[in-house]
Structures are given as C-alpha cells and as structure tokens.
C-alpha cells in the first residue's frame, strides 16, 4: 500500500491534440493545485492520449480539481485510481559509484530488486528499475552509501487491476477514424 496521505493518482484521457498538456498543467498552476508527478503518452487508440497525474491534495480539493479538469474541452474522462487497486509503476535510472571492491555488492543488490544493469564503466554502474515508487526509494536508500552520482525518475503511470478498461472508445464518443 502506498497510500501516502494526500497523494491521488488521476488517469486523465484527453484528445490527442496540440497544446492539451499545457491546458492541463496550466489549470493546475493557475488554481494553485500541486502536482507530484505527471506522465503523458499514447494509448491503444491513436486519437486518445493518457495523462497520469499524481496530485497532492486533500479529498475535498480533489473533487474540485476533477471538476475543473472536466471543464477542459479536450478532456474526455478522468478516473481516480485507488492505491492498492491499481498497478503503479515508475522508471528510475540511477548511476552509482563503483570500485572493484563494491561492484559485485551493487550488482547483488540490483538482483535482489530484479533491476537491470543498464551500463557499467570503470568506476560507475547505472541501474535501471521499473517498479512502485516505494521500491524505487528502497533501492536508492540501499545504494546511497556507495555514492549516487546521478538519478532520474519518470512520473507514475498506473492501470486499474482486473479486466476493466477505461479507454473504451465507443464510450468516449469519439468519431470513427476516417
């Protein structure tokens, strides 16, 4: 469970049109809502993009955020993904200092997390891990003593567990592709 207080994951389906990300991000900025992370990408339908937003807010504000998002003309659908009932993933690349003495320990640690060794050099190793935010943080904690040289992390993406899909095109009232 990653139900960190006041963190809400919103899956926002939008029309794949220019400027739509600016509209969404701008709405958050102008109304003073806090974004922890934001990830945007295509879906199985080329007309639809999916923005995953982790918003930092209490529940009352969340309702207002969802309503304001819904007012954007290019927003098709918004679903809050409950922690626990959804699969959350982030991708992290971390470059750690490594000597001949520590290299094998670091690789062992990476194995425990089922992380990939993305790159090895004389005195550094880059580890790639796609997992929950909590596991990414644990790995970083354990790597910290070796010396973290650089770290990059994407925003959260998430899907609800089970068979249901929120991107059924017919329900989104999209026009058939001509």
């Amino acid at each position, binding site marked *: 469970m990653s139900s960190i207080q006041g963190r809400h994951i919103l899956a926002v389906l*939008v*029309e794949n049109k*220019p*400027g739509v990300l*600016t*509209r969404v991000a*701008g709405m958050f900025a*102008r109304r003073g809502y806090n974004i922890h992370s934001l990830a945007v990408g295509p879906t199985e339908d080329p007309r639809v993009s999916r923005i995953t937003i982790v918003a930092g807010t209490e529940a009352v504000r969340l*309702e*207002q955020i969802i*309503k*304001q998002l*819904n*007012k*954007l*003309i*290019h*927003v*098709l659908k918004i679903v809050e993904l409950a922690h626990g009932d959804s699969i959350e993933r982030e991708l992290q690349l971390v470059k750690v200092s490594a000597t001949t003495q520590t290299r094998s320990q670091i690789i062992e640690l990476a194995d425990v997390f089922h992380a990939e060794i993305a790159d090895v050099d004389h005195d550094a190793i880059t580890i790639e891990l796609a997992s929950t935010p909590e596991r990414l943080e644990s790995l970083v904690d354990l790597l910290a003593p070796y010396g973290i040289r650089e770290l990059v992390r994407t925003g959260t993406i998430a899907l609800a567990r089970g068979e249901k899909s929120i991107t059924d095109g017919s329900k*989104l*009232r*999209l*026009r058939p592709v001509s």
Partner: protein
Amino acid sequence: MQVTGAQAVMKSLEQLGVTDVFGYPGGAILPAYDPLVDSPLNHVLVRHEQGAVHMAEGYAQATGKVGVCIVTSGPAATNIVTGLQDAHLDSIPVLAITGQVASGAIGSDAFQEADVTGITMPCTKHNELVREVARIPAAIKEAFHIASTGRPGPVLVDIPKDILNAVFEWRWPDTMDLPGYRPTVRGHGKMVKDALDLISQAERPVIYAGGGLVRAGAQEELFEFATMLELPVVTTLMARGVFPDRHELWVGMPGMHGHWAATKAFQESDLLITLAARFDDRVTGRLEDFAPKARIIHVDVDPAEIGKNREPDVPIVGDAKVVLGQLVEVARAKLAEVKPEISAWRATVAAWKAGHPLAWDQADEGVIKPQTAISAIAQTWGDEAVYVAGVGQHQMWSSQLIPFSRQRQWINSGGLGTMGFAVPAAMGAKVGVGRDVPVVCIDGDGCFQMTFQEIAAAVQHDIPVTFIVINNGYLGMVRQWQSLFYEGRLSQVTLPQDLPDLVKIADAYGIPGFRAMTIAELQPVLDKAHEITDRPVLIDVRVDPMENVFPMVPAGGSNDDVIESDAEWRERSAQ
C-alpha cells in the same frame, strides 16, 4: 465551391446567424477584411481593440446572442485580453477571431507575433489555433457552440494569415466533433424532489438569484417559481432585473454594497435556494460567517461551482431555466405539500426592507448628490431603457437605485471589475437592442477616460447611446477606501472635474453635450438629453466629490457587520 479561408470565416459567421461584428483590421487579419466588403455583416470599426471585445460583451448581454469581435495578431490580440477575462468571469458568450502570423513564421518572433492561444488559455472557455484551411468552418462552428452553451463564455479562434489566404472546397459541417464537451441540461429528478422537500420544511427560505439566470434567460421560470411558492427573492449584482424590483417578494441586492435587508435576510435564513449564483466574495463577505444558519440548495450548469465555496445540501447540476421548469412542474402537482408556511418570515423581511431604505442627504439647492442624479436618470429614462455601468461608486449606486424590471436591462462588469467597460459595452448593447430601446451609459469620470475614444465609432456608425458621466473628480471608490480605511490620506485619486472639459469633448465629436452643476440644473439637462434619440449625447453631471457608498461590508469582514450609513460609520469609528 472553392473559397479562401478568409471567405470561409465570413460565410461561417453568416451560417451561424451572426449579423453584427466589432473589430479593427491590421496585418495578419487583412485577408478577412476583404470579403467583408461584400458580406451582409454589419461591422463596427472601433478605436481600440479593447472596445471591440467590450462591445461584443455588451451586445451579448443585451441580446442573449453571441457577441463577435475580429482583430489582428500581436498587440491587437493582447488588447482584447481584458475583455476576454471579463467575459470569462461574467460568463458572457463571446467569439473572438484573431489573425496570426503565417504558419511558417510562428515561433520565430515575427512582426506582430504573440502566442495568443497561450496568452488566452486561462481567460477563455476554449481556444484554438487553426492549422489547416479546411478546418475553419468547423472551428468557428464549434467555438460558437462552446461559447453559447453550458456555462457561456469567451472562445477564441486564432487563424494564421497563410491559412486565411489558402483555398479549399467549401463545406459547412452538419455535426461537431466535441467528444469531451457535453453540458448537463436537465436536473436530476431525485435532486429536484429533495430540493422541494427542503423548501417545504423551511421556515426562513430565501431565493439567492445569480447572474446565470440572466444567461439562461430564466426570468419567467423564476417568476413562476418564486410567486407560486411565495418565496422572498434576493438578486445579485449580476442578476439585477431578473426578478422585478417592484414586486413585493423582492428583497434587494446582497453583499458588500447591497441592500441592508437582503444581506440581513441571507444571514438569518435557514435555506438559501441558490440559483445560478457562485457564492462570490463580494456577496458572502467572510465565507465562514456567511448565512451561518442556512442549508443550501445549489443549482448551476457548471458542476465546478457546486461545492467550490460552500458545500450544498442539495446540489443540482443543470441549466437554470430547465431546472426551474422542473421545480415548478413538480411543485405545482403537490403545491399544498410543498409550499412552506412562512407568512411570518415574509412579514419580517418586508419590515426590514421598509425599515432600511437607502438614504442620503440632498439639499434643495446647490451640489448634486450622486444618488440623486442616478435616481433622476432612472426616472427620466424609465423602464424601457437598458442601463450600462462601469466600475466603482457610480456602478454601486446604479445597481442599488435603478428599479429594474426585466432581465438584460442591467449590464455591468461584475466579476473582473473592468474600468472602461461601460462606454463600449453600452454601444454594443445599443447595436443589439436597436433603435427603439434607449441605452443609457452611466459612467464614472475615471472609467470614462479609459475608453471614451469609442464615441468616434458611435458617431461614425450611428449608435445613439446616452453617455452620462457621474463626475465627482475622484477615483471615487478608491477615494472612499482611503477615506475610510487609510485615515483619509488620499493618494493618487484626484481627477480634476474640468480635465478634460466633457462638453468640449462632446463638441469635438460633434454630438450634443450638457452639463449639470447644481440640483436646479439636473432635471432640465436630463430632459433635454432624453429628447435626443437619434444620435449620441454626452452629459457631465457634477456631483458631491466626498459622498460614500453605503451600506458597506468592509472587505474580508462578516456580513453581520454591515455598516448601513455614513452616520453609522462615523458613530462606529468614534468609539
């Protein structure tokens, strides 16, 4: 038929039934001004682009139709930003068409380039940069639809010059592709029943009527609902006129400068029937203290308004006109059950209203009190006129003192408080209502000097508005705050009453100009101006510079602390 993008703009507007547009040509929009020569559209050439968008707003507010303005790129587009935000806050349907630099030049800091869709994103309901010529008809049709449905608002369509010049096969789309836009129109049946349940149990209910009722054109439905259930009605600044002031159920206007009885009725109420209003800070005062004993029914077409400032007990999302129709229909079927027994409450409210009229000291001779001037204006032009005001003291006195009788009779800048709104908005309103309905622009001397250059357009295009300046030689509302809250230290608020000489201004524009210096001169001047209906008129009414607007709830204060009069203020500050 092959047409250019520019021709498609004109044809699209004609298809949508547009008859009047307000604009100003220039570089990037030049192609669109060529087919205008052959178009049946009536185009008003403004003197500053801000005038074009305010005229479109005034037109829209007076008619309920979409107001259209056309301007060029860069500085012209940035000049309409104020009006777009004004329309955004007051939910006014406006379509703005802007020229843009050629597609290939976008992003190169070209001459008269500005990121107009970027700049206007937060101050429009929607906007679009058109990227291909064949998209023009659909873009304009969709923009018009978005502007005028749901919660109305401004929509901007930005069209690069090369796209205006490009040629395509004309086709008017029969459908629209707006999968993410479907406003709720009908209220939820169960919520309608719940609302009537609350009303039936209420002991001190009040209708809180907001500006959305005017946008929805709901005055008949409101009248039927209120009179059938005999519920007291409070009309906000934006809703003035949607329920007739002369009706016995009308209580007044609430809020910072509202009528004492209306503010009091809210504070004592046990049920606010909120119709297309938004619990604005100028109405609520300190939010935690607003109507503390009241349960809330909230009807609004914009779901985001519900629960934004005050959590309702019964939320109803829907068009106010339709929802009121539903409420009336259900209530009529079981009137005995639904109608609350509140004759004692009505009597209490009526006694507050009778006991707390607006009052001011007008001497028989000499200086004119601004309230006297505005009352005399209302009496002279009467019920048939549309009244348009700017922002400040004159606006508050006008909203307090003119006895309104119908929706769209009162036009002002409520949400944004845009000084300079009145002159162009009144002209737009006049274009909308036509020859037979007088339009009276009541402006302050500060506001007037922001946009009076548009009088040239009023003369050139034969738009006979009566412009009346309530000239107190101050930025009156700011002066009032400095007098009351800054120990009378007046800072940068003096606008000498003779600067400029407004009668000479009238003369310069070739229109009749009058001045009233004293109470004896007031009515004769108004009568003379009233007789002139075929051309613009300008009246300079010199009023008492130090008069303050009361009642007043100090900013951030509780509505329970409303100060009713100058005398009460002096008494309180002496303590």
